[in-house]
């Protein structure tokens, strides 16, 4: 048995690399033909990707690609119930304490998540705390996926993650199948939707490209039969999540007055609304006003 507290232990992934991490990236993209960057975008164009990021020394590049492949194809979900339970519990408790200490940020996110599924939006929210501290912010969002962010990370996510924890605890075998299906769908995708982003010295880049050919041509994604068609150019077409997300937004986070009961010493009060409509130009002076309202100077 290997004890993780043992000082002689070293992270296996860390032995061949400077760390490997998976992240979820939702990135609004500028629609094709949009020249004027100062206008509010329609908020239907975005890229959604699973990223595996890693770094290593030049001689470890083949090992790093092996780790990438293992992370994507070989992670053992079946025996990882307690890992997910602990992560969900820890996430829930830290989110609850964040809501108590930074309720204004959650109120702001919730309000922003009422007007736009994703994309550039402008909303003003005023926050009044019971300590008679009054502050005001003008939120300018450029790279947020508004409602989707609220759904995945905002105050609404407290309930969904509690439900997921319940599902994990009550029927793991069923939950694991859903996770495996997600992974299979992503891996069975098309290379046309894949992206390899490299940074380094010239000799590093050359060394990566030498190793990358085998990985890109024969490694991932794997052919599981009946692969998904290549993704369209999302700068030209609406992302497939947008329509469902819009329905979900209108249903679960409509524009109306609401109160959310949380256990805090202060009351966080937010007020907000849309300042600019889609395609309206926004001047640089808005940044000055925003800064003034946020900092008071």
């Amino acid at each position, binding site marked *: 048995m290997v004890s993780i507290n043992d000082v002689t232990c070293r992270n296996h992934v860390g032995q061949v690399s400077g760390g490997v991490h998976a992240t979820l990236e939702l990135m609004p993209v500028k629609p094709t033909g949009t020249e004027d960057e100062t206008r509010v975008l329609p908020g239907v164009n975005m890229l959604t990707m699973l990223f595996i990021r890693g770094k290593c020394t030049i001689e470890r590049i083949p090992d790093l690609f092996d780790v990438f492949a293992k992370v994507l194809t070989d992670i053992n979900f079946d025996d990882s119930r307690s890992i997910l339970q602990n992560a969900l519990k820890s996430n829930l408790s830290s989110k609850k304490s964040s809501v108590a200490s930074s309720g204004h940020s959650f109120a702001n996110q919730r309000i922003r998540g009422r007007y736009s599924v994703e994309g550039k939006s402008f909303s003003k929210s005023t926050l009044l705390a019971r300590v008679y501290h009054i502050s005001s912010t003008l939120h300018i969002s450029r790279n947020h996926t508004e409602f989707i962010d609220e759904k995945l990370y905002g105050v609404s996510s407290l309930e969904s993650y509690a439900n997921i924890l319940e599902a994990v605890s009550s029927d793991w075998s069923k939950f694991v199948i859903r996770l495996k299906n997600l992974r299979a769908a992503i891996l069975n995708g098309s290379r046309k939707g894949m992206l390899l982003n490299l940074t380094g010295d010239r000799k590093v880049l050359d060394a990566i*490209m030498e190793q990358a050919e085998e990985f890109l041509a024969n490694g991932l994604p794997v052919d599981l039969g009946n692969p998904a068609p290549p993704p369209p150019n999302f700068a030209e077409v609406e992302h497939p999540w947008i329509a469902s997300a819009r329905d979900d937004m209108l249903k679960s986070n409509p524009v109306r007055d609401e109160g959310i009961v949380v256990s805090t010493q202060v009351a966080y009060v937010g007020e907000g609304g849309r300042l600019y409509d889609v395609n309206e130009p926004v001047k640089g002076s808005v940044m000055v006003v925003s800064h003034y309202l946020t900092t008071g100077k």
Partner: protein
Amino acid sequence: MSDEEYQAVLDEGVNLKKLQDTDETPEVIATMPALSISDIDPVPIEYPIHVERNAFKSGVKVISHEVTSSGIAYIDLGLDISMIAYEDIILLPSLITLLNEAGTSDMSDAEWRYVPIT
């Protein structure tokens, strides 16, 4: 500590406080390095970017940035997930958690992420 020594410490403290409260002379202030607006380049740093849309005819888009990295390779692999049904996106953070924390088919999470140096 003698009375004289005690008094010397007190005096030193008083003098230090006085020194800290006194404004510097303009000559001294003039020796402080300072930037003016014209010292700041209005053009942001542009990192080189090279895009190869169909690397090795595999269909994969390879984006590279040549920078000084002291021999360190930074590699990000991105996979499209737009085919995931909207109803399932709430599960994506759980998937990411397991990719980052669980073990592999032949190594426990401890072995995969922590193995002894042999």
